[in-house]
């Protein structure tokens, strides 16, 4: 699944570690989600959307 996490993170000048801390997950988790290798659960996707003050659809897309 494609996502805009890297862009959203860069806009806020956050490192992967910064985002991981805010999400209360490991940096490896953020990296795996960001690179599209791991799809987050719905609760984590909502948490990301709340953190970036946007919608899940604005972060993730199911296009290949």
């Amino acid at each position, binding site marked *: 699944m494609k996502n805009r996490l890297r862009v959203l993170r860069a806009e806020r000048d956050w490192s992967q570690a910064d985002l991981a801390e805010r999400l209360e*997950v490991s940096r490896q988790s953020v990296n795996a989600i960001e690179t599209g290798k*791991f799809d987050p659960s719905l609760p984590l996707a909502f948490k990301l959307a709340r953190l970036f003050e946007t919608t899940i659809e604005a972060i993730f897309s199911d296009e290949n």
Partner: protein
Amino acid sequence: MLCSIKSPTERRYVIRMWIMAALCVLFSLVAAVVFRLSHPHGILAYLVGVLPALPITGALIYTGVYLAEEKDEFQRNLLVQSLLGGTGGILAVTTAWGYMEDFAHAPHLDLVWVYPLFWLFAGISYGFVRARYR
């Protein structure tokens, strides 16, 4: 080693596993000494004989507790995939070895090796799973 672990849940799990490993060694020594010195029979022999398996059971329970406590779903996913790899590996090897014992008279594989071999396969599996997410 513990300093490199950031998650309190993971740290707690590692500490619990080390305690269980230490208890396993201790109970194995106790069982060996008891059998050497007093040659217990009947139910007492079974009770002393099962001692080293108690911390092993504890370690498996704590692994389940870790999976229930770990909030990081990615880390949980890594461990679950590794455990599946370990389970598949040990099932495949012990089944294959059983057939080799039956048909080819291969040397007998003592069942006490199942648990360490399970973690060996789980560890190898963990390496492959981690590599996939790099």
